[in-house]
């Protein structure tokens, strides 16, 4: 995949390195500016309020996760 990308970049090696770095920076920027801000509210890490609905579901989810992890305990 990356080998294919490298072979299709134009120019000599130094130019390719620069282009590859620029591509990486663009990808990181897209992740930080759009993808991660979209993902963040969908994950439970940043809940701080008390409320009736969403929080209850998250609590239930975390409980079942903890129960599942505890269930694996006998294996270690």
């Amino acid at each position, binding site marked *: 995949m990356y080998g294919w990308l490298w072979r299709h970049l134009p120019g000599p090696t130094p130019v390719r390195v620069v282009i590859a770095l620029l591509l990486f920076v663009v990808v990181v920027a897209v*992740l930080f500016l759009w993808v991660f801000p979209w993902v963040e509210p969908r994950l439970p*890490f*940043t809940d*701080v*309020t*008390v*409320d009736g609905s969403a*929080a209850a579901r998250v*609590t239930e989810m975390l409980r079942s996760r903890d129960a599942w992890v505890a269930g694996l305990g006998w294996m270690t």
Partner: protein
Amino acid sequence: MNAARRTAGVVGELLITAGVIVLLFVGYQLVWTNVQADRAASAQSNALEKRWAERTPKDPEFDLPLKNGEAFALLRIPRLGDNYRVPIVEGVSLEALARGVGHYPKTALPGQIGNFSVAGHRATNGEPFAYLDQVDVGDDVFVETGTTWYTYEVIKEYIVEPTQVGVILPVPNEPGAVPRRRLMTLTTCNPRWDSYERLIFHAKLVDERPKSEGRPPTLGGGG
């Protein structure tokens, strides 16, 4: 054989890419959201102080109705540092909480009878309440508005389920009761890096003074 090796190679590169993306997300949460939120909080605090500096004695204490995501008061908790100063913004959406501490809409305002309730991040997004667990019963919490310094004293600290909305009722955990006291409630997530509980502080109003009389003596100088 060759095809299988190529496929394995691509799958390996995809897995490495996925790992890098997850690490980048960790960096985003732990560093980037704090950088962004600290900048937004400073902008809110400065804008609010500028507005206060320009107000005339006839202006109301708050610019009602409060605008979602905009600061209307400043919070100081000396236990969390001499320079600890966080804007209190209206609303508890993620956008609002990324600019400071959020005021639960429809709960009382600072100094009013009832329960002035705020929420703040314990981790990421500026994490104003990161070390809120170090606050003890008896500690002072100061709220500065356009006209007044309010001093609240912490009277209770406990942990509840996220669904226990009763903590921000006018009389905490007593639905329908008629409030007589002037309370303040602070909520944040517990434990710090998870979110299956909420850490709750109740405080009561112990002092209220016009800003023309200067800062409350128990607060001391500094920013």
